C-alpha cells in the first residue's frame, strides 16, 4: 500500500489517541502544534513535497492534531523531511513545523522505528566520536596535505555522557560501524 493511501484511509474512532496532541505540545519544539490552522504554507513551500508524491508536512501536522498516533509514527514519509526549516520560518501561526516532525521522529525512534543510517551514525559516534568511520588512509593523508592531526575523541567519556538516554540504550547500539 502506498503512503498516500495509508494516510488517506478513513479514520476509525478506535485509532484516535485524544491526548496525543497534548503529549506533543509538552515536548520541546511541539509547543505550538495546536495553533496550526491548516493553511498549507508549509506544504507549498516544502522542497521535498515538490518532488515527493507522498510527503506533505501539513498532513503530518494534521494527523498529529487528530491523534492518529500509530499511523503518523509508522509513516515512512516522516523520514523524508530534510530539516531545511523553511516551513518553520514561514508558518503564519508560528508552528515550528520542522521541530514537530523531529518530535514525532524521536517518538518513532523510541519505538524502534529508525532508518538504518541513523543507527549506523549512532554506533560510529559511540565508537569513535565521529559520525562516520574515517578511513585510516584519510587520517594518514592529512600529513601529506599539510593538515594538523585530527582532534582525538574520548569514546569512553562519550558513552558515559549518553548513559540513560533511551534511544542510545535501545536502538543506538544496533548500528554498523563499517565504512559507509
Amino acid at each position, binding site marked *: 500500500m502506498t503512503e498516500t493511501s495509508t494516510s488517506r484511509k478513513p479514520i476509525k474512532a478506535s485509532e484516535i489517541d485524544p491526548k496525543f496532541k497534548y503529549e506533543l505540545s509538552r515536548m520541546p519544539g511541539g509547543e505550538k502544534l495546536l495553533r496550526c490552522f491548516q493553511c498549507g504554507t508549509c506544504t507549498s513551500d516544502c522542497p521535498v513535497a515538490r518532488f515527493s508524491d507522498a510527503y506533505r508536512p501539513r498532513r503530518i501536522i494534521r494527523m498529529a492534531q487528530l491523534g492518529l498516533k500509530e499511523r503518523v509514527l509508522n509513516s515512512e514519509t516522516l523520514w523524508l523531511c530534510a530539516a531545511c526549516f523553511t516551513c*518553520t*520560518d514561514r508558518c503564519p501561526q508560528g508552528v515550528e513545523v520542522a521541530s514537530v516532525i523531529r518530535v514525532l521522529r524521536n517518538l518513532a*525512534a523510541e519505538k524502534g522505528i529508525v532508518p538504518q*543510517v541513523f543507527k549506523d551514525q549512532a554506533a560510529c559516534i559511540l565508537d569513535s566520536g*565521529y559520525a562516520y568511520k574515517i578511513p585510516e588512509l584519510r587520517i594518514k593523508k592529512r600529513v601529506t596535505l599539510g593538515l594538523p592531526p585530527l582532534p582525538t575523541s574520548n569514546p569512553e567519556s562519550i558513552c558515559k555522557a549518553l*548513559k540513560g538516554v533511551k534511544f542510545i540504550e535501545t536502538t543506538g547500539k544496533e548500528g554498523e560501524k563499517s565504512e559507509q
Partner: protein
Amino acid sequence: MSSKYLIFLGCAIPYRVASYEISARKVLAKLGVELVEMPEFNCCGLPLDPVSHETMLILAARNLALAEQTGLNILTLCPGCAGTLKKVNKILKEDKALREQINGHLKESGLEFKGTVETKHIVQVLTEDVGLEKIKEAVVNPLTMLKVAEHVGCHLLRPRDIIGFDEPEDPQTLKKLIEATGATCLDYVDETECCGAPSVGVSDKVALQLARDKFNHVKAVEAQALITICPFCHIMFDTNELRIERMFSETYGIPVLHYPQLLGLAMGMTPEELAFNELRVDTSKMLQVLKGVN
C-alpha cells in the same frame, strides 16, 4: 584586529571534504585569524537530532563544555555544526532545568556547560571579524572575469529565531563576500532552497531531484561556478553532478567551489595550494576564463 578561534571541523570535512579545510585554513591564516585545534572532539550531535533530541543536546553541550575550558570561541566550517552549537548554547543558557539535566550527563566526565563561549561559522567570522574592507585589501588578483552563483544552504540562516544571522529570505552576506573577490554574483531562482543532502539515504531520488533543480536554475543564469560554504552541500553538488547529468540527460559542467577556494584565488594563491585537485567537477574551463582565455 587579530582574532583567535578554536576550529571545530565536524565529521563530514575530515571524512571527505579536505579541499574545504585546506583552503579555509590557508585563507584564514593569511587574513590574520589564528586557529587552535579542539582539545578533544565529538560529533556536534545534529545527525542524531532526528532520532534523539536529548542525544543531540548532550553531544553539543559536551563540545561547548570542552571549548569553555580553553576560553576560546568556536569557528566552524560546517553550518550544521555552527547552527547546532549556537542553538544548544542558547537553549541551555535560557532553560535552567534542562541545563542541570544535561550537566548531570556530563558530570561523570568532569565536564560542565556554563554557556561562556560563542560559535561562529567562517562566513560570519569573515564578515564580522575580518570585515569586507580587509578582505578587499587582501585581493591581489581580482576575479573580474568570473560570473558565479552562490548556494548559502539552510543552516547558516534557518531557523531565523535561533540563528539570527543575515536575512534568511534574501541573504546578502555570502554575495558580498563573493563580490569582494571581484567576481560577479548572479541572482537565480530559489537561491535559498535546500541542496537535498539530508534526504540522501532516505530517498536518493528526492535528494538528486532537489540538486538537479538547483543546477538547472544556476545554469539558466550561465554561472561559471557554484560557490558553497557547507561540506554537505558541496558533496551533494560536486560529487553528484556527473551522476545527475547522466540520470536526467542534462549537461551542466559547473565547477563547485568552496568559498575559501574562490577567495584564495583572488588572494593570489594557486589552484594547487587551494586543493582544486580534490574536486570532482573539472575546473579547467573556469580557470581558463580567469586567465582571460576563451
